[in-house]
């Protein structure tokens, strides 16, 4: 187990890089009022089909022989922490579209690891020039947004197509 949740975020984020993501968005919501900590890693990488996803979630492990394809251990670590801290864990993935990993936990749960050095995690992931690393942080009082690349040729996969087209049109014009 990692002693900082930001290390879990780095670990999950590395999966996104391996999946060829051009946009990697990390969302951290820390609400003392509601006693929730929500962590989300969303990418527009190659994604997984249902069978692959079910397999890695069920097996919770990666063997050396198929390490390149199986990414179970890192997910299992985060799932274990979430569930131990009164929260939930979900992975949604669509082949060709991307993957979203969402974990929640009780902020005041005694076993909850600290968030730790989120800056170092973002800095490490943002060292890859091909990916726009984004951080969206929110707590009860303030929000913070970080984008590693100002020039955004790749919109997040959730952007409606019409919007993307008009953006392209305005660039072309």
């Amino acid at each position: 187990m990692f002693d900082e949740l930001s290390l879990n975020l780095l670990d999950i984020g590395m999966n996104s890089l391996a999946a060829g993501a051009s946009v990697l968005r990390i969302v951290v919501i820390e609400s003392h009022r509601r006693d929730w900590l929500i962590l989300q890693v969303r990418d527009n990488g190659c994604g997984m089909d249902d069978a692959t996803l079910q397999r890695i979630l069920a097996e919770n492990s990666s063997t050396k022989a198929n390490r390149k394809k199986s990414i179970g251990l890192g997910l299992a670590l985060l799932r274990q922490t979430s569930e131990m801290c009164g929260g939930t864990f979900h992975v949604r993935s669509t082949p060709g579209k991307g993957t979203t990993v969402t974990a929640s936990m009780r902020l005041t749960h005694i076993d909850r690891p600290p968030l730790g050095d989120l800056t170092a995690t973002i800095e490490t992931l943002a060292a890859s020039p091909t990916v726009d690393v984004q951080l969206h942080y929110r707590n009860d009082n303030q929000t913070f947004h970080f984008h590693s690349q100002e020039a955004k040729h790749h919109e997040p996969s959730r952007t409606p197509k019409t919007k993307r087209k008009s953006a392209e049109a305005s660039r072309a014009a």
Partner: protein
Amino acid sequence: MNLAELQKLKEKAQKQVALREGNKKYRVVVSMGTSGIAAGARDVMKTMLDEIEKRGLADVEVRVTGEIGLEDVEPVIRVERADGEQTTYARLDAEKARKIVAEHLAHDTPVENLAVGKEKKP
């Protein structure tokens, strides 16, 4: 959660994007798989980035990769020189990382006692 630090990173990242163009003399690849992270690879990475910036080494780029097959001696980095020489360093920590920046990256002198492998690729 330290927002001031993140704000600084934001400003730094904008500068770094501008520095990314062109071929560098050195490329440092940090093994950042699950086992590397657990062994402290992020600290090694951060120390190297800070030290490279502090020394103003413009001819060095730092990248991350997944597991590279040396899980039992993590944290592991590979220093690749533009002419094909590759040096692999293992069992690193922040202090050793600083030494590698100071000697290998800044003065072209590989740190022999920390290296676990060296090869030359054409």
